[in-house]
């Protein structure tokens, strides 16, 4: 590596850093180190190789090297480096004008970080989705949305999960994927019910009913029945509704939540509603 070092360092005889040769040598060194399983050195070599490629303005190769460096960093367990490298790789891909590999890179980074740094992972997922949406390729974003939602649910950030699901619904709408859209809306309603936030669930249902496709679909009907069962406080009905499809066709994370319905005390919901009626009576 020192040998390569002197190639790039400017010296008296060298007026321009000879990046081309240096890059080639760096690549060789990196591959050699990886083969020998010296991950630390291989990672460094990949970094330098990537920088070299950038210098000779071939961002594609630079991005590829960055990704290799990032995967090695993952194996080493340098988590902040992982996210940095993947972000850099994604930027380089975007320079090439290729959005799909860019979001793929972010996606890989996010899945690598899911266990250790889930917040960062979620941020990476959302950035990846945005990249695809800018480019009009929402179809590819579905998997990312799914992974991000499951991460949110694991973190128990349910409002965020529900918001993300609604965004998923918008994306599905743009590419006419009616089935996915309805499933996303139904999942959002279930999450609100799981949080025991009945008003929010109602509002969500009313909003989603604006979309004609959802209103007339199986998922819409199931949502209607769920909400009416909640209003009546009928626990058996809720349990019965959670069994068959279409809930079984949703993501398994959502199914787990649905099985745990109803959470909390349904009587509370009834009491709230009663209070409202009393107030109306007082006014009149």
């Amino acid at each position, binding site marked *: 590596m020192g040998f390569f070092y002197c190639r790039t360092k400017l010296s008296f005889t060298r007026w321009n850093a000879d990046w081309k040769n240096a890059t080639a040598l760096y690549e060789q060194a990196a591959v050699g180190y990886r083969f020998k399983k010296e991950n630390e050195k291989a990672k460094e070599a990949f970094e330098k190789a990537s920088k070299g490629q950038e210098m000779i303005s071939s961002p594609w190769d630079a991005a590829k090297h960055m990704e290799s460096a990032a995967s090695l960093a993952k194996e080493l367990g340098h988590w902040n480096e992982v996210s940095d490298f993947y972000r850099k790789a994604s930027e380089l891909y975007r320079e090439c004008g290729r959005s799909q590999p860019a979001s793929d890179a972010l996606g890989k980074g996010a899945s690598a970080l899911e266990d250790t740094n889930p917040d960062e992972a979620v941020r990476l997922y959302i950035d990846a989705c945005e990249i695809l949406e800018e480019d009009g390729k929402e*179809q*590819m974003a579905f998997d990312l949305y799914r992974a991000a939602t499951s991460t949110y649910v694991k973190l128990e950030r349910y409002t965020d999960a529900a918001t993300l699901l609604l965004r998923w619904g918008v994306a599905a709408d743009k*590419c*006419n*994927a009616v*089935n*996915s859209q309805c499933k996303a809306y139904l999942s959002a309603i279930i999450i609100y019910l799981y949080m025991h936030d009945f008003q929010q669930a109602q509002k969500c249902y009313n909003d989603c009913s604006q979309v004609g496709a959802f209103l007339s679909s*199986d998922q819409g009907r199931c949502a209607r029945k769920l909400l009416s069962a909640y209003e009546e406080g009928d626990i058996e009905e809720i349990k019965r509704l959670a069994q*068959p*499809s*279409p809930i*079984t*066709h949703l993501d398994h994370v959502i199914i787990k939540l649905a099985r745990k319905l109803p959470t909390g005390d349904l009587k509370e919901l009834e009491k709230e509603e009663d209070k409202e009626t009393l107030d109306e009576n007082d006014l009149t």
Partner: protein
Amino acid sequence: MSVIDILTRVDAICKKYEKYDVERLNGDNVAGDDAFARLYASVDLDVESALQKAETASQEKNRAAVVALNAEIRRTKARLLEEVPKLQRLALKKNIAFCEIFLYQVKGLSKEELSTRNDLVLALPDRIQSIPDGSTNGAKATGSWTASASRTEIRFDSTSDGRFESEYFQQTEESNQFRQEYEMRKMKQDQGLDIISEGLDTLQNMAHDMNEELDRQVPLMDEIDSKVDKATSDLKNTNVRLKETVNQLRSSRNFCIDIILLCIILGIAAYLYNVLKK
């Protein structure tokens, strides 16, 4: 003369001499003079026909036909039973001869004839009742329930017998069993249909997902298509140029020149070798 001719001639002759047919006139007038005998004869005829129908019914395989025949028989029986009181009244009256042309036809009723008529009339209801009409098998109906395929018919025309109440009771037992079986079968069918509907739901969901996946892959395929087209055209170009180059290299003129030059060099080398050897 052919047979047909003979038959027509015989018919014509019979018609001509009809009025001399004593037996037939006797038969007609005997029945015609006597209202009782007329009515009795008609009732007798009906009873005979009903008995014949009952026989055909017992041999008939088609259940619908059996039911229809039995219904007819029952209606006839009801009608005949209504005629029986009329007959009884007529039997008690004295007979008055209407036609006076045939003197020996005038009849008065003797005492024996009166009694026989009474007996006949009394026997008539029993005869009418005894015509089998499918409603007399109440006793064997309970035994026939072991075969679940056979069912007793639904009875609309059952005459108002005293047996009505007991038969009705037996019917409800049978119909209860029937209803139970029907309910069980319906439940099993419902279960099967539920399973089928669940399977169909799963299939529908999978089909929707497949649909979306294919929609997703359509633009990718288009991209692949265009890229591969570009690659093939590039390859074709390269191939053509390569062919030209190789042809140039291997053209026969160059080859001959190479061989000649090689021979010249070998000649020079041999000459030098010879010179040096000396």
